[in-house]
């Protein structure tokens, strides 16, 4: 053992050892990507299963149907009559309907300000008190007046009213049922959930006049169209990429598929053939939605409060009718009603490949961690390298030989340990400056009005591209840039990037992976003397800069830039979406420092 140790110790001084880390970094990224691509294979993903015994999905007979259909038609007629009315008139009518069959009703006003626009409305909700409960637990049934696509959710609202009337007659509920009818699918539920948990800003959002117990689950119905449908689309992404417990999705897949014979899909993958390609596509779509962190439906607002929620959206042309949908909801509510404790058994971190196939966090997390680790490896490597005496580097690395010895580098006597003094102050100052100016885009994009946003973005993109050149010029004029300076700035910047992404991957895997992948060129850039290489590097960096990536992503998905910025601002101001922080305060400063480093040798004095 001692011999082994001394061999290892002597290896430590081997200059060849210092050549390895960049390859390890590249290897980490490659493995991370390949790992992700392997996940859809049968050997790496698992079939889903219901792990909470109390749920018993599909074990009860559902009675919703028959004469309820006439009542449903009547309610739909009422909804149609209200189509052109304003929010308050609609709520007056809904309130009278709900109180008509003995449900306590509350109303709540709210106003949100974002990107210079005002989003206001009034929620109406009813609490159906459980005959066998003590108002300590509740389940929520949501139907927004406007669907996710901004259409009148006529079947959804009518169905909720019918179900409310139907549920009221049963005596088996042990949890209160809350019927929430917000005016839209975006802001209404957020205001309601915030106020339910007393986490609202009381200046803009009214408190709730009526409350029940802890929310155990929520189901939203998004059913605007007229015709019969083929499958149920389950939307499950919450704000900031948080997901509901997998058991909820499993139960609904089970009830819809097993009991009612309705197909279910996830991530808009109609006609999923369960092939590798389809699975991969489903997973990548899921990752994209998760990475954006943007709410995908009225259910999204519930998930940050640890309330498992999904939206059910009928899709396609088929033979299933509203009653079948009602029975799915009834079945799911009967399952949720059985719960003895909050859903906790199954997974909270997963990627779905298909309605019944998933990978859990233990299997997929390494890919994002590897990508994040590549930055840390490179940071440690650069730190070690910056501590090596110049003379040694000259011998091994000819092209860098002309780098003048900076003032931070002390002359080393042969007997002293083989590390040189590092001048930490100026690299730290540069990194701190870059990170602190990143507050500017974050503030600007979340506080400007919609009219000025596109212009601000254009200005920002231009200045963001010009900034590295200005920075490197300033650095060159303030002090002689040394190789050590570049190594240390890059080391610190990559360290921060690596740490942030590793942390992020435990909260929002997809965002961490996407940002890590897009920032991966930063690991390999370095100041070179070769003009062609440098030009290539600069172009590569500009192509992977945050503003360019954002605008090209918007362009490819056919959304205008102003819509993207408006949505981002709305996400920040209403839902507390933290994606802008990651982009502007983690990724952008790292990019800024990387590009400054690449350009720096241009201005060498």
């Amino acid at each position: 053992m001692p011999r082994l140790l001394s061999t290892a110790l002597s290896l430590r001084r081997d200059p060849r050892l210092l050549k390895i880390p960049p390859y390890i970094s590249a290897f980490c990224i490659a493995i991370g990507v390949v790992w992700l691509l392997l996940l859809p294979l049968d050997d790496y993903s698992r079939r889903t299963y219901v792990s909470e015994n109390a749920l018993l999905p599909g074990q009860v007979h559902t009675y919703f149907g028959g004469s309820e259909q006439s009542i449903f038609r009547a309610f739909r007629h009422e909804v149609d009559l209200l189509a052109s009315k304003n929010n308050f008139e609609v709520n007056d009518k809904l309130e009278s309907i709900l109180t008509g069959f003995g449900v306590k009703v509350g109303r709540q006003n709210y106003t949100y300000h974002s990107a210079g626009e005002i989003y206001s409305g009034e929620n109406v909700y009813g609490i159906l008190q459980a005959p066998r409960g003590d108002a300590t637990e509740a389940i929520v049934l949501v139907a927004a007046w406007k669907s996710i696509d901004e259409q009148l959710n006529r079947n959804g609202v009518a169905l909720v009213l019918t179900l409310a009337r139907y549920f009221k007659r049963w005596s088996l509920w042990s949890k209160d049922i809350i019927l929430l009818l917000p005016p839209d699918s975006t802001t209404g539920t957020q205001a309601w959930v915030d106020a339910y948990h007393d986490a609202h800003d009381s200046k803009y959002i009214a408190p709730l006049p009526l409350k029940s117990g802890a929310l155990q689950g929520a189901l939203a119905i998004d059913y605007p169209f007229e015709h019969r449908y083929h499958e149920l689309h389950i939307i499950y992404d919450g704000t900031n990429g948080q997901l509901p417990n997998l058991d909820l999705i499993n139960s609904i897949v089970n009830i819809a598929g097993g009991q009612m014979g309705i197909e279910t899909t996830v991530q808009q993958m109609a006609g999923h053939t369960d092939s590798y390609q389809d699975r991969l596509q489903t997973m990548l779509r899921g990752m994209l939605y998760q990475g954006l962190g943007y709410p995908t439906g009225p259910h999204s607002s519930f998930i940050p409060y640890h309330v498992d929620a999904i939206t059910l959206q009928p899709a396609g042309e088929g033979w299933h009718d509203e009653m079948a949908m009602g029975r799915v909801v009834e079945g799911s509510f009967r399952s949720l009603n059985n719960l003895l404790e909050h859903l906790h058994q199954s997974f909270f971190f997963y990627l779905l490949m298909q309605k019944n196939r998933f990978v859990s966090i233990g299997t997929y997390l390494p890919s994002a961690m590897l990508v994040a680790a590549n930055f840390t490896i490179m940071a440690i490597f650069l730190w070690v390298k910056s501590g090596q005496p110049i003379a040694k580097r000259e011998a091994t690395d000819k092209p860098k030989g002309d780098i003048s010895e900076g003032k931070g580098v002390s002359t080393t006597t042969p007997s002293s340990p083989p590390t040189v003094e590092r001048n930490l102050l100026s690299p730290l100052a540069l990194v701190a400056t870059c990170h602190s100016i990143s507050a500017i885009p974050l503030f600007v994009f979340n506080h400007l009005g919609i009219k000025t946003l596109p212009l601000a973005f254009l200005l920002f993109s231009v200045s963001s591209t010009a900034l590295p050149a200005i920075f490197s010029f300033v650095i060159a004029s303030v002090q002689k840039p040394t190789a050590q300076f570049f190594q240390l700035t890059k080391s610190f910047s990559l360290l921060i990037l690596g740490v942030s992404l590793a942390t992020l991957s435990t909260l929002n895997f997809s965002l961490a992976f996407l940002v890590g992948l897009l920032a991966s060129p930063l690991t390999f850039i370095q100041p070179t003397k070769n003009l062609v290489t440098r030009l290539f590097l600069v172009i590569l960096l500009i192509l992977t800069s945050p503003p360019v990536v954002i605008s090209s992503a918007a362009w490819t998905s056919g959304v205008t830039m102003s819509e993207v910025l408006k949505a981002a601002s709305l996400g920040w101001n209403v839902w507390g979406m933290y994606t802008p922080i990651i982009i502007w305060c983690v990724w952008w400063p790292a990019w800024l420092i990387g590009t400054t480093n690449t350009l720096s040798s241009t201005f060498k004095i």
Partner: protein
Amino acid sequence: MTLQSKVGVFAGAALLRLVLSTAFPSLPDLLTGRVEISTPVTSFKRLQEGLFLYNHNVWPYDGGVFHQAPLLLPLFSLLPDVEAWPIFTSLLYILVDLLSAYALLVIADSGEAGQSKHFTSPRRAKRSSGLLVAAAFLFNPYTIATCIGRSTSVFTNCAILFAIAKALSGSPFNAMVAISFASYLSMYPLLLLPPLVLLAYDRQSEKRRVDSAIKFSIRAILIAAVCISLLLAMSFALTGNSWDFLARTYGIQLTLSDLTPTVGLWWYFFIEIFDSFRAFFLAVFWLHLVIYVGGLSIRLRTQPLAVLTILLGIFAVFKPYPSIADTSLFLAMLALFRHLYPIMRYTYVASATMLYATFLGPAFYHLWIYAGSGNANFFYAITLVWSLGQSLFVSDLTFAVLRDEWEVERPEMVGKEIRQI
């Protein structure tokens, strides 16, 4: 180092804290609620609770929330209500931070780190200026967070630094009074007494010199004892003529009866432990904490300041309710040993570990408490990493101090690779 730059650093630090706490009015309350900053024995929120009871003529320890020294109560009841006028509380904390930085400046300028009475480091030429040390303390994010989070460990830290500064400037009496205050507030600084007495003994002024070490230490310990007794007597009078406050303040630290999570290693262990072993392991944990004092004071007799620094590092890891305030104090003292940096081996790894823990800690706490998708093990794992990072620093500093000493004894080994067998 001009007066101008000194004023600049201090004013800058004060301004930064003031701007942060006034521009983001919710920030102080947010930080006060963080378990990394506020422990059961230093939390400002708990102090408010005690203060409320005190001001309403109720025994402040009723309710079992407040566990801090009684004398803090009259001090804080002098201040205007924190809800209406948070600025005055902020100003008090900023002032205390600046005083600590001033004490650090004195400590750094004394040059004790590189050259003590019995030991002169061959590397002492390379030292950081007092201003740099003070700035490193004032602009350390951990210090800033502690100051804005209004943790009462700020007062303890200030008292400890003043005790060291006074010992260095040859006034043992003041040093003993300061350490008594620190011990009164938090109890654990009492363990710093032996190295502090040694330090004060080494740095006595020529005029009032006491040659006998025993006489000197007896006198010093007497001063500390009298001072602590006075403080305790005042507390006795303040809390309705009863000694019950002892059990509610120091007793809590001794028995760890409040198991609120902290960044330390105790809470999780004592949640998991079976009750029958609790007393035994409490004794073991405390013994472990105490045991370093004697050993280090004897082994590093020639460098009492190094002993104090290493002990502060050990306390920041192993004391019952540690927080980032203790880490900030240790890091501030670490900055004094600039001349040892070249022979420290794991600074980068240790700082990277601590950086990782700093980021991951709040994330895992969030997953555990708010998102509900994690559990207590997540956060505990990170506190282990955090402690690992700090203990790396402590052991690395100890290694560097010993190596520095060793190179004086064995000049032929300077710069050679050594290996522990």
